[in-house]
Each structure stands twice: as structure tokens, then as C-alpha cells.
């Protein structure tokens, strides 16, 4: 299950809307081992594409070093689909390399409604999980 604060969900959705029709991507970092997403980090989509996303390699290194220094990890890795449902594509599954992360998919195909779903992707196996949105972890 993914438990996440509403403000973070709003930031992810706002980023996805802003970059539409290109895919948006980023992470929410949290203390290592906590499974609690806390720090929203929007990343640039180096592919600038409506059908593909890829973190810029140097931006990724900088962020990963920073997380190391702060004893954080990428609790959530998110990206948007802009014309299809919020479900991992074959490419998403093939390239998923963080078995401990919650892979969040947002679809912006509908202007009014947003799909926000979360998955574990481990060894090519996708498992959807429940998303619980809270006002605050308190």
C-alpha cells in the first residue's frame, strides 16, 4: 500500500498537467527505510516525448548523491501517460530497476478527471497496490 499526503499528490498531478502532452516524471524522496514519501522532486524528461520518459543522467546523479547525503531514497517514482491509462507499459516494466519503489502512474488523457495509481514492479511482475491519500502523516 502507498500512503501519501494530499499535497504531494497535488504536486505530482500539477506537474503532469503542466507537461502534457509530454510525459512528466520525478520522484518523492523519503527517509531510507521509512516507506514514507516526503520530499517532492520534479525531474526534467530528457526524452521530451509524449510516449517516453527518461531522467537526465546528470540530474539523476546529482539527486541520487543528494539523497545519499541526506540518508533518503526514492520512495515514489512517478511519471505520466498522456494518452493511455495509468498502467505500466511494457517499456515501464522492462526498465523498472527499483524494486523497493512505489511506481506511481498518472494519466492526463482526460482533461477533467485524473487517474492516480501505484504499483510495485519487481523482476518484470507488476502488482497494483492501494493508494491511501491522507491530509497529513501526523
Amino acid at each position, binding site marked *: 500500500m502507498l500512503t501519501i499526503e494530499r499535497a504531494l499528490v497535488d504536486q505530482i498531478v500539477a506537474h503532469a498537467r503542466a507537461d502534457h502532452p509530454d510525459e512528466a*516524471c520525478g520522484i518523492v524522496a523519503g527517509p531510507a527505510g521509512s516507506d514514507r514519501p516526503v520530499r517532492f522532486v520534479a525531474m526534467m524528461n530528457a526524452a521530451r516525448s509524449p510516449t517516453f520518459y527518461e531522467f537526465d543522467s546528470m540530474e539523476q546523479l546529482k539527486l541520487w548523491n543528494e539523497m545519499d547525503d541526506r540518508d533518503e531514497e526514492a520512495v515514489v517514482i512517478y511519471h505520466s501517460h498522456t494518452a493511455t491509462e495509468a498502467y505500466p*507499459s511494457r517499456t515501464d516494466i522492462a*526498465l523498472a*530497476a*527499483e524494486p523497493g519503489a512505489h511506481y506511481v502512474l498518472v494519466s492526463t488523457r482526460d482533461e477533467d478527471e485524473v487517474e492516480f495509481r501505484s504499483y510495485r514492479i519487481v523482476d518484470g511482475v507488476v502488482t497494483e497496490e492501494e493508494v491511501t491519500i491522507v491530509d497529513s502523516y501526523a
Partner: protein
Amino acid sequence: MAIEVRIPTILRNLTGGDKAVEGKGGTLGELFADLDVRHPGLRDRLVDDKGLRKFVNVYLNDEDVRFLAGLETEVADGDNVTILPAVAGG
């Protein structure tokens, strides 16, 4: 002295759980071959027939080796190599 190589979570099953390992070599390609002796299978996750695998980022002292000389990039004792799987998808 040796070259320190930081290993991402997903490859630590090949290093006995170690976050960093040490190796030697004059080029990145030689370093990976050296690592593969003690951590069999590691090289195959990083390199294919065409060179460095797509969607694997390798950095030498915080520079992306794709902007250097790829597997031919020269390395030396005291250098730091970081391996990160690209975060990408469709």
C-alpha cells in the same frame, strides 16, 4: 589503491549485498572485466555486444562516461565509478 565502484540496489545480489566494490584496470572495460572475476554476471548487466548497455548510467568521478569515451574511458587508482540504472519508461 584501487578504483571504487558504487553498485545500485538492483545489482547487489551479484556483490553479496555490498554497496561498493573495488577493482582495477586501465579502462572502464578492463575494470568491468576485473570485477566480473569476483562478481560473476556483473559485466553482463552493464555491457552487451555493442558496448555499454542502454539504460545503464555509468559515471566516472561524477561525469557520465557516455560523454567521455564509453568503455574506452581511461581509469586510474583513486577514481570513483558509480553505476545507476536509468529511470526511464514509456
